[in-house]
């Protein structure tokens, strides 16, 4: 019975660490309370202020990066991730995801994505926010891909490391500020 108790005690930290894995890569930015530092190491973290409240992704969900086809000559590159409000007291006023919708040619492929490295799209990227009642709000954003590189990581799998900054506004009432992202996306998950 004693050994069973010991086992239970020793297993608890393992479970705790597993469930907490998602927040391991949140490294607080002392200049911007509630946000993570601006990094380019594939930490799988993104954070920003929306209406002055800090929002983060929790690291357990990879971003969606996919090309949505359309009937006309322009497709849309959707770059989207879930959001969680950093201050749980404001959870019901939070937004649940953010999506950038970049117009791209039908021929857009991985090489074109890598060419985003160092490109700043000023006040021209459509952005949508979804709130807790699934209501969508559309506006315009600036999206700056500071680094987009191909990396050979675990088990010889190829990843795209993307990091950058963003801000934007939806009308006059919703301001997205001080946004930063740092993702590592498995190339096999891309649909282009």
């Amino acid at each position, binding site marked *: 019975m004693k050994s069973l108790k010991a086992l239970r005690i020793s297993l608890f930290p393992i479970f705790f660490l597993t469930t907490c894995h998602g927040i*391991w*890569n949140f*490294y607080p*930015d*002392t*200049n911007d309370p509630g946000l993570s*530092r*601006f*990094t*380019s*190491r594939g930490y799988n973290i993104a954070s920003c202020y929306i209406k002055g409240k800090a929002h983060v992704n929790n690291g357990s969900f990879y971003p969606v990066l996919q090309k949505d086809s359309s009937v006309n000559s322009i497709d849309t590159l959707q770059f989207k991730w879930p959001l969680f409000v950093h201050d749980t007291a404001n959870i019901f006023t939070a937004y649940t995801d953010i999506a950038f919708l970049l117009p791209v040619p039908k021929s857009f492929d991985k090489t074109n994505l890598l060419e985003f490295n160092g490109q*700043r799209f*000023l*006040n021209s990227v459509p952005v949508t926010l979804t709130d807790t009642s699934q209501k969508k709000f559309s506006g315009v954003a*600036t*999206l*700056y891909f*500071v*680094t987009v590189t191909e990396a050979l990581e675990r088990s010889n799998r190829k990843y795209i490391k993307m*990091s950058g*900054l*963003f*801000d934007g506004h939806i009308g006059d009432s919703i301001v997205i500020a*001080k*946004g*930063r992202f740092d993702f590592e996306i498995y190339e096999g998950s891309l649909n282009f």
Partner: protein
Amino acid sequence: MIPVIFRWEPFKRSAFFVEAIKSFVINTRLPADAYTTNSQLPEHVALTEKIELKDFALGLGGAFVVYTNKKNNQFTVNVSSGICDENFIVDYTKYDEANYEVLNPDVAANYSGLYAAVAALYNFHKRKQDMFIMLRLQTASSAAKHDHYTLSYNKTSPLQLTFGYKLFYAKNKKK
């Protein structure tokens, strides 16, 4: 890094000693980059990052005589252990913090913990003054990192080669 070691051997016939170590470190300067989404500003500025280290260690140790020759020159192995404190201070050249974000910024860190050291010391015996040459290796502080964040700097583990003089003092005897 220029370490200054103060070593006190309180007993003439004992190998016991007390050591205090303070390093004078030349600040490290590294290039850094900051970026902005503000259309009114250049998208990138190059910065200089300054990393300053302040450290101190205090320990106790013992010396073991390995070899003594006819001229009383001695080769000893010294082992010591104690507490140490390393404080890294990070500063960036002045920039517009409201609009720019530093990429992969370094942050300040403090490592207070224990250390162990081993030194090989050869003592050249003279009548009034001893000279010595010492090769000393000290472990890094036992303090763990606070998180997994990658920094440009790491805890130090100094390897030093020192040439020095021993200063003797004599207690005044009461008449």
